[in-house]
């Protein structure tokens, strides 16, 4: 029992070692194995610096000793164990803490700017360094936002979505359109990949698709009270009406996203995730859960949906499967409702989730028992998370703070 035959391999060319089986102690853990690999690498090339490795046995991270892992996985100790090793992910480093005046309801960032929506009825644009660049005020109620570089979208409890145009050089924001049509608070908006349309989901159980292209004329022409309307449009922008309305949910729509240019995915309080054809408006598939869905996220890299629900679990779903109620994986570590999930834009296995228990957790689907890291910076409910392409994790919550973390995912491992 003391010794196990193991063969180590890696995708990373930098850390390649000879493909021979080694006899290693069965009781060895991650640090022991890491030391073994480092020894081998040192022996191979002189200029090697110590690197922490993580090990995967049958596609799952090794967290206990090798022996107990093999016992639970029913791997025979007679055979040669295939162990993959990857460079260990380092912990995300906190970078900025941006104070707001009120609860942060949503956050989105690209490589340059951070856009946040807040309960003080404003949306704000921040630079990466945490400087307030712009405050967009116009809603009469709580805000959600979605940005498309120079065009910004903000949705609100006042049942409208505003389309703003932001000139970053002159730092000016102009309301271009006010999208009216929902009969409940608008809880979510999503811009399609072609950036010509966007979709909104509301408490009134409807999904609506709107044009995202700013135009000069008003869509809706209401003759009788036109003069008054015109006056209003000076501040509020031109009124816009939806292109298409999807009805089918029995409860409020909590989250919506585009899978690709033709397919929409929405999550609702009626315990379902529905896939829609954006062209025809028909429902393609439905995934039934057992709890209210708070948020969903889709990763084109692994083609999985991640959902946050009003229980403690982050669940992964396969949107293509026809018997759509099968949970692929449950990630359980939170103690409260999962209010936000976001897949890593660059890594197929990683996602981040925020919960009412004040903790943001970074997950790797290869280690489903425990998260990779807990980011416990918030002092109150986490309400939104985001993850940019350049490795920045953002989270905002009810403590009025927006935290950013720098996360250096191994470039070599990404896209593996």
């Amino acid at each position: 029992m003391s010794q196990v035959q193991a063969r180590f391999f890696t995708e990373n060319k930098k850390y390649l070692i000879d493909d021979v089986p080694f006899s290693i102690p069965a009781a060895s853990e991650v640090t022991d194995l890491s030391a073994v690999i480092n020894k081998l690498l040192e022996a191979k090339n002189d200029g090697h610096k110590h690197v922490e490795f993580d090990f995967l046995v049958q596609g799952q991270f090794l967290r206990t000793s090798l022996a107990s892992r093999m016992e639970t996985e029913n791997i025979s100790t007679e055979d040669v164990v295939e162990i993959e090793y990857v460079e260990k992910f380092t912990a995300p480093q906190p970078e900025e803490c941006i104070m707001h005046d009120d609860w942060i309801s949503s956050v989105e960032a690209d490589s340059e700017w951070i856009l946040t929506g807040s309960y003080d009825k404003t949306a704000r644009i921040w630079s990466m360094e945490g400087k307030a660049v712009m405050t967009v005020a116009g809603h009469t109620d709580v805000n959600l936002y979605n940005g498309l570089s120079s065009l910004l979208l903000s949705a609100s409890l006042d049942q409208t979505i505003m389309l703003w145009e932001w000139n970053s050089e002159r730092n000016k924001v102009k309301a271009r359109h006010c999208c009216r049509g929902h009969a409940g608070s608008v809880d979510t908006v999503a811009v399609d990949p072609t950036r010509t349309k966007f979709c909104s989901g509301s408490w009134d159980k409807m999904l609506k698709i709107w044009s995202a292209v700013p135009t000069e004329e008003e869509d809706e022409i209401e003759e009788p009270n036109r003069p008054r309307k015109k006056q209003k449009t000076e501040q509020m922008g031109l009124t816009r009406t939806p292109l298409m309305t999807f009805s089918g949910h029995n409860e409020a729509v909590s989250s919506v996203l585009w899978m690709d240019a033709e397919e929409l995915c929405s999550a609702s309080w009626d315990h379902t995730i529905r896939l829609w054809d954006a062209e025809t408006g028909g429902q393609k598939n439905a995934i039934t859960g057992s709890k209210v869905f708070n948020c969903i996220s889709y990763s084109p890299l692994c083609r999985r949906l991640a959902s946050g629900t009003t229980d403690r679990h982050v669940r992964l779903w396969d949107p293509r499967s026809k018997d759509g109620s099968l949970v692929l994986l449950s990630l359980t570590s939170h103690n409260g409702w999962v209010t936000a999930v976001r897949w890593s834009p660059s890594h197929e296995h990683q996602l981040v989730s925020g919960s009412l228990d004040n903790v943001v957790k970074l997950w790797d689907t290869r280690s489903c028992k425990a998260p990779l890291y807990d980011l416990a910076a918030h002092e109150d409910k986490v309400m939104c998370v985001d993850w940019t392409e350049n490795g920045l994790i953002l989270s905002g919550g009810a403590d009025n703070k927006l935290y950013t973390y720098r996360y250096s995912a191994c470039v070599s491992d990404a896209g593996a």
Partner: protein
Amino acid sequence: SQTKKSLFSDPRSVWFISSPSCVMFLWHTVKWADSLLIFITFSVRSQDIRNTVGNIPMEWYKDYPHIGYDLEGKKIFKPIRNKDELDEFLDKMENPDYWRTVQDKMTGADIRLSDEQVDLVHRLQQGKFGDVNFNEYEPAIDFFSNEVMIHPVTNRPQDKRSFIPSLIEKEKVGKLVHAIKMGWIKPHRPKETTPQYYDLWAKEDPNSILGRHKMHIPAPKMKLPGHEESYNPPPEYLMSEEERLAWEQQDPEYRKLSFLPQKFACLRAVPAYSRFIHERFERCLDLYLCPRQRKMRVNVNPEDLIPKLPKPKDLQPFPTTQSLVYRGHSSLVRSISISPSGQWLVSGSDDCTVRFWEVSTARCLKTVEVGGAVKGVAWNPNPSICLVAVSYDDTVVLLNPGLGDRLVCTATDQLISSYEEPEEVKDQPVQWAVAEGEGHEQGHRLILKHPKAVRQVTWHGKGDYLACVMPDNGNSLQVVIHQVSKRRTQNPFRKNKGLVQCVSFHPIRPYFFVATQRYVRVYNLIKQELTKKLMANCKWISSMAIHPGGDNVICGSYDCRLAWFDLDLSTKPYKVLRHHKKALRSVAYHRHYPLFASGSDDGNVIVCHGMVYNDLLQNPLIVPVKVLKGHTITHDLGVLDVTFHPTQPWVFSSGADGTVCLFT
């Protein structure tokens, strides 16, 4: 008397007395009487006086000087009696025949009996025949015997009737034959020949006899003496000093040995047995207290006694964990209510504020100040109206929170402002006023001033009628029903029996539930009559909730009970649950899920599965599924109100600690 007379007159007439059986007797009697008569006649004749009055009572001649008449028809005078007592005495002393002297009643004369007469009297006194010569033991001659003599006693020929059948018998036989023909008599009744006793042990189970034998319990046997009882036991049976001390300190009941083994050099040295009486007594006790009957102990598994209920795990979904806490109130939160869409929650507190919360985030969106500690809040259940009724002190305010659909909010405002005053104004117990100024800015729309403090407000399902409870020990005006669209107030009950605790509208039918301290009365609002009176079997009802189906009611009471009524079943509780440790403050049903919850002063919310079946024959299934803890007990008060989310299996509870909790 005639016979006697004739006897006297003619002794030979005896021959005409013709009864053969007594002829002999008469013969002798006549013989004797004859001799007597002859004798007496002789003695009377010597004096020659004969009285002719006959055999009459001689008292009839008492008052006359004479005593009768002689043969010639001359009076016989009574002899002169002048003898006094002294003469009588002297006569008795001197006359040697005094004892044989008798007075003749007929003549009054003294007669001296002769020796024969005296002898006759003596004989008669002794019961002997008067005639000395009569032999009463003469051999009898049997004339009428079974012996047929050649000369018959009588020579009469035989009657004709002895040769012909009897007519009487024929008549009797005819009657019997008729009765048999008519079936009145059964001639051949089968006689029951079987003996009329029964088998005492016929029905006895043969096993029971066996059982009786098995049941035999012999008297307990005495333990045979062992080595330790020996006068000279082996040394290992003797106790060491410590063992002896331990033995002495032990309770006599728990001692292994009831005596101390002792060693004697020889049998001679053994003293008298000191425990003899004690031991006999214990033996008697053993015999006397030994069980006479084997008790059949039924081995009941305690698990089997618990009613078979489904596992709570199978009754998902129900709230299990505390998810959100709505913090902001600074005093106890008396009442909560949720909007029909389930997006907003309103809570009324003793800090004189009403707060509106977003359910999904616990964000307080709005705080409205009112002029007193809020006792009750109720969100209008009609989704096309956005109104919240808030009661504080003696006022009920209808608030428009301005949350939810903008169009609905403006429509509600328009509805209220479009009210037109009716032409004739009725005198109402409640004053309606429209809020203006700052109150209107805050959302106040209508203000209803009641005569008394309002404890509870509740809406009808359609959202037009609003019932208010003003508990009061006085009988009148405890419940009023307002119609908001017409701004009219009704006092439905001229008289209320008892202190009204809470009221509720039936969700479907026009019924109205009024809970007083001990009873829940169900009124039909259309017929305006009492339909049912539910007896809660508890001391003081605190709260009540109606099942959305309308046929079941739960009542919470201050004596820790929750009573479930099935209105179709009985007016008594179908089930009483005593899960809470302290007084219940609030109960609630879920609108869709088969759940109900109760909040109590012990700070717990207990969620129960309460399935009501469409099948009328199946009784509701009640399973307690979860105890939810989340509130800290403040001033001995825990949970004050519970309410369910309209669409999700979530329960809200408000507590005395100033928080509202959401359990999911």
